[in-house]
């Protein structure tokens, strides 16, 4: 299966940089410590007026720093824009393989690598210092896997959408910035979305961004009902269909230009 091979190759490529990545992990953990310190400072003496205490927030930040490497820090535009700029996209779209799978399977390889060389080490650092939550119910582990998988699908699709937009705009740097900000800000990377001011806290629950970070973290902490997986599933399917449709439009646009 060609997509499986692409996934493996992309995993191997990343393996070349593992020392640099391990240094970067230390920085990622420091970001986590800073966020935890902010929450500890904010909640000190006010825990009774908050739905979460200091320990809850420590676990929350620790888990979200780990999942960020699976559904937050993806390749900008999945590198589709590079192909658009140097013209390689015309070959890539003309290949008999599915372009959407061709691009996403390479990113998947990188994410598998991230899991072992980013998420797990960072999680270990937190486990040894401030503590890391261990889900109590056996069934939770199944739902965590499903939820994280859906989170990855949602995020890969959001990044694909940014990348494929290059067929019309050529420049995606700012689109990536906006996408990432929304993902981190409205996805609950630092602030759980139920802490956001009133209209926003309700609205964000139904946006795809929450499905990428907030919901998997809450399921991991066993603080959300498993029903939220339906919201994730909805976005995973919708975004995939939208992207397949847009890819088709991109291909047609390419044929019109003719080269």
């Amino acid at each position: 299966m060609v997509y499986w091979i692409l996934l493996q190759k992309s995993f191997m490529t990343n393996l070349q940089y593992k020392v640099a990545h391990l240094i970067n992990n230390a920085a990622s953990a420091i970001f986590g410590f800073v966020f935890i310190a902010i929450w500890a400072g904010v909640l000190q003496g006010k825990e009774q007026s908050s739905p979460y205490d200091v320990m809850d927030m420590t676990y929350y930040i620790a888990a979200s720093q780990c999942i960020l490497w699976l559904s937050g820090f993806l390749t900008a535009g999945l590198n589709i824009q590079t192909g658009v700029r140097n013209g390689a996209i015309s070959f890539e779209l003309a290949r008999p393989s599915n372009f959407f799978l061709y691009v996403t399977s390479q990113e998947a390889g990188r994410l598998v690598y991230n899991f072992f060389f980013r998420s797990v080490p960072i999680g270990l650092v937190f486990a040894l210092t401030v503590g890391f939550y261990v889900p109590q119910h056996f069934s939770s582990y199944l739902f965590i896997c499903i939820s994280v998988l859906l989170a990855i699908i949602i995020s890969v699709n959001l990044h694909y959408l940014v990348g494929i937009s290059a067929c019309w705009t050529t420049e995606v740097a700012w689109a990536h910035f906006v996408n990432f900000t929304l993902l981190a800000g409205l996805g609950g990377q630092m602030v759980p979305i139920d802490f956001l001011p009133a209209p926003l806290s309700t609205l964000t629950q139904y946006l795809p961004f929450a499905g990428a970070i907030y919901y998997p973290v809450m399921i991991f902490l066993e603080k959300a009902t498993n029903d939220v997986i339906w919201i994730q599933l909805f976005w995973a399917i919708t975004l995939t269909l939208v992207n397949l449709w847009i890819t088709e439009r991109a291909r047609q646009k390419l044929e019109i230009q003719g080269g």
Partner: protein
Amino acid sequence: MNLYLKLLSGSLRSRMQYKMNFLVSSLSYGLIMAVDFVLLAAILQRFDDVKGWNLYEVGLLYGISSVAITLYRVFGVEIHNFERYMVEGEFDSLLIRPVSPLSLLLTKNLDLSRIGGTAQGVIILVISIIGLSIDNFDRFLLLLYLPISIASGVVICFSLGLLTATLAFWTQRIKDFQTFTLYAPFNAANYPMNIYPGWLKIIFFTVIPVGFMNYTPILYLLDKGGSIWNLAWPPAVALVFLFLSLRFWYFGIRHYHSTGS
């Protein structure tokens, strides 16, 4: 100096060839930083303060730190992206010019899209200074001191950037170090240092001295502790750190071996 201005205006003009792209990218960069602050405001709206610092007081720290790092990103773009010179072997071409490599790097390019971030930092500063409940004399002192604090911050940031760039002489790639030496510390400096555990505080007041640029002087200016000496620390630390980083930079250049290809 004359040469510097000439080189700068050249790079400015080349940037302005793409006005629309410039506007969109600076706007979006400013927007991102604003979202960060809005989230913080949302937390503090609900919980009043973080270890005794209210929103406007944190805003002061936040504004200084973000103006400092974004000004560095505007003027120090080639230092920041220095690994390119190592990886692509372009550094040799700088060494044969009659001007020092550092001045060449500083004048070669400006990343004006980061100006949006600076503007956003200034806006946060303005809001915070207006919102603070202090008397007018203290406010006046604060305004007077602000440029010194920001300038010290830019110098500290530049020095950290240069130290990190020098590492490239040995390691070639530095992007992963920058998260460690620049992004994480300046993100931490957005908030009061007293919230951090001891070992982090030690780092931020020694090897990566970002705590001095805003926390130390603001502590005194907002009457939260310290003595008048707190005001002398930021420029002093900045100058010492600049000196050290320049020494390290020249040490690095002496040990530079071209790829030879």
